């Protein structure tokens, strides 16, 4: 066992033990604990849990690598995956918390109709499943590189731990475990980033110091025949950058596993501050990621430029075993580099390894490399657990009890919810080990679907009393069909031919237009049909004020 493997194993076992301990401490006895953690989570803790829930394997493992190869246009992920929190905090979270029940489909059911609730529950399950498969696969990468485990074994171990705390503690167990996981992942992300910034610029704060290397990075990129790192719109046209950023923002604000996190706070005010803390915690990683991307790319390019293929740095050998780094056959010295396997470049580096390999690329000691492995797993597992809760609650609370078992007792409900959770974990393990070929591209689906279905009808449901059930159903269906059709039209994964992008709009960017189409249809159809009942309009009025009005003044 190498040093790196020892330290990776050490940190992974240590953190897993902590998660299991927390799970045991926070096991629950009723559905309110299982679904919304007894609505008793302090704002800062909830913020950390949102951050861990949100920052997935993609944020931790892939994002800095994506930015390194996209350059300036990597901003689509940086702004897209943070800006949505402004929409959530101002437009959705406080109102949904005031209404205060268990799931997103449940709100839609109360506000519109039971049909909308069933459709929403199905969409929530589909969206969450596409997302959870990516987390499982991300966990598999960490295990196979750092612990030399087969991907299947790694996925099974990670899932067994998730299974333990998600089934035992539901939302309560998940929330407190996520607080621990956030701590692990942010420490694992920041330590190597600060160390790399210190060695390369002498200033340990990467957010400030990566400006100093941008000139150098632009110059060396040009020598490799790549575009200028800081030049905008080299990877995507301007219109597409605009739409993808907007789609990711709207999608973020519409993803059920993010929204339900705001049901767990004590108060409406708590929901607002949770959103603030969440974005502080997320921003810590998201402002570091572009620095990691820039530093690692410069290190990578300098390390291999003009180097003979048999004299490459050792991290390339280490990672070559995973198949994620390849030196093209017959290459003497490295002159070209790409993240695209079909580009024919001398050295092909997969996006997913840049963060995991950055400590090695920068030559940091083995314990830090091992810590990064534990951080990657924390990111993957915390997100997977949040998604599994949505799948379990939608399946049990929104579908099973309504259609099959109306009069289930409290203990029976808890049991069924646990069984639903267990079943969801098993399916996730299966797809984690045998990921469908289209997984990478299908994540774009999750955001596009959330943006074009949930966000507009939630927004209109809160801010426009006149929106009615017929309008919401029509809006959701048209938004969904529109968005899915364009994705199928442009992506080859469903067995159809890949067609040209219309006006340069990529499938990732179509969700924003889908959301607009949904909103327009909802408004027009609502105006043409009967307004919602008096009771529904009163419910909408009620969620606008955090509590009933007191006549006497209270001091702050």
């Amino acid at each position, binding site marked *: 066992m190498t040093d790196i493997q020892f330290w990776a194993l050490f940190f992974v076992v240590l953190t897993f033990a902590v998660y299991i301990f927390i799970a045991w401490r926070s096991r629950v006895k009723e559905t309110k604990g299982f679904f919304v953690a007894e609505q008793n989570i302090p704002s800062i803790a909830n913020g950390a849990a949102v951050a861990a829930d949100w920052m997935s394997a993609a944020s931790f493992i892939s994002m800095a690598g994506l930015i390194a190869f996209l350059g300036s246009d990597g901003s689509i992920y*940086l*702004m897209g995956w*943070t800006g949505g929190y402004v929409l959530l905090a101002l437009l959705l979270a406080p109102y949904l918390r005031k209404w205060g029940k268990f799931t997103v489909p449940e709100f839609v059911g109360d506000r519109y109709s039971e049909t909308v609730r069933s459709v929403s529950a199905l969409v929530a399950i589909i969206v969450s499943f596409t997302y959870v498969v990516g987390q499982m696969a991300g966990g598999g990468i960490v295990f196979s590189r750092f612990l030399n485990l087969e991907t299947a074994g790694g996925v099974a171990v990670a899932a067994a731990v998730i299974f333990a705390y998600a089934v035992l503690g539901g939302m309560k167990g998940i929330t407190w475990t996520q607080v621990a996981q956030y701590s692990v992942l942010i420490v694992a992300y920041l330590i190597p980033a600060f160390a790399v910034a210190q060695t390369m610029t002498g200033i340990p704060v990467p957010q400030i110091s990566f400006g100093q290397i941008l000139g150098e990075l632009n110059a060396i990129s040009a020598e490799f025949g790549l575009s200028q790192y800081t030049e905008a719109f080299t990877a995507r046209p301007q219109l597409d950058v605009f739409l993808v*950023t907007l789609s990711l923002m709207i999608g973020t604000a519409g993803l059920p596993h993010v929204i339900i996190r705001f049901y767990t706070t004590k108060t409406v005010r708590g929901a*607002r501050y949770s959103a603030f803390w969440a974005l502080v915690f997320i921003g810590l990683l998201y*402002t570091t990621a572009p620095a990691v991307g820039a530093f690692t790319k410069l290190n990578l390019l300098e390390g291999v430029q003009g180097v003979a293929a048999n004299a490459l740095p050792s991290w390339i050998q280490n990672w070559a075993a995973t198949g994620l780094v390849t030196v093209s056959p017959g290459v003497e010295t490295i002159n070209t580099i790409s993240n695209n396997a079909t580009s024919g470049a001398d050295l092909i580096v997969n996006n997913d390894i840049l963060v995991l390999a950055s400590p090695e690329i920068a030559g940091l000691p083995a314990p830090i490399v091992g810590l990064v492995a534990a951080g990657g797993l924390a990111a993957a597992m915390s997100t997977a657990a949040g998604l599994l809760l949505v799948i379990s609650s939608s399946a049990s609370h929104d579908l099973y009890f309504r259609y099959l078992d109306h009069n289930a007792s409290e203990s029976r409900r808890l049991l069924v919810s646990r069984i639903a959770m267990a079943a969801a974990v098993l399916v996730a393990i299966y797809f984690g080990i045998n990921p469908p070929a289209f997984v990478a591209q299908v994540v774009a689906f999750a955001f596009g679907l959330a943006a074009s279905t949930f966000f507009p009808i939630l927004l209109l449901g809160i801010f426009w009393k006149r929106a009615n059930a017929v309008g919401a159903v029509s809006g959701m269906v048209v938004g969904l069909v529109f968005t899915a059709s364009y994705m199928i039209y442009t992506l080859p994964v469903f067995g159809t031919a890949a067609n040209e992008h219309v006006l340069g709009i990529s499938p990732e960017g179509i969700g924003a237009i889908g959301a607009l189409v949904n909103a327009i249809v909802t408004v027009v159809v609502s105006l043409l049909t009967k307004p*919602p*009942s*008096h009771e529904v309009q009163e419910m909408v009025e009620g969620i606008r004020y*955090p509590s009933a009005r007191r006549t006497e003044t209270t001091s702050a």
Partner: protein
Amino acid sequence: MADTAEGAGGAPPPGAEPDNDWRKEYWRKNLRLMVVLLVIWFIVSFGCGILFVEQLNEVVIAGFPLGFWFAQQGAIYTFIILILVYAVRMDRLDDEYGVSERNGDGSRA
């Protein structure tokens, strides 16, 4: 929320009854704050980071082309501040209209 201003049968809200003026006022102030913050949200992210990024890139501060900095750093800091301003201003608004959440003894819930 028993005494809302809407008529029975789900007609849209008629003119304000005196009793409910505070509701309209509270909601209008909330909406105004929201719109101001969302305009800033749009200008900083989509304006500085995407629409005018190339023009701003002409200016370089501490090695960062300014547009690039907004797109990869500045926008995120702005988002955090916007949410904080919203939460703090809404606390004040809730207190002003007596709709903040309180425990039995009047302390913040």
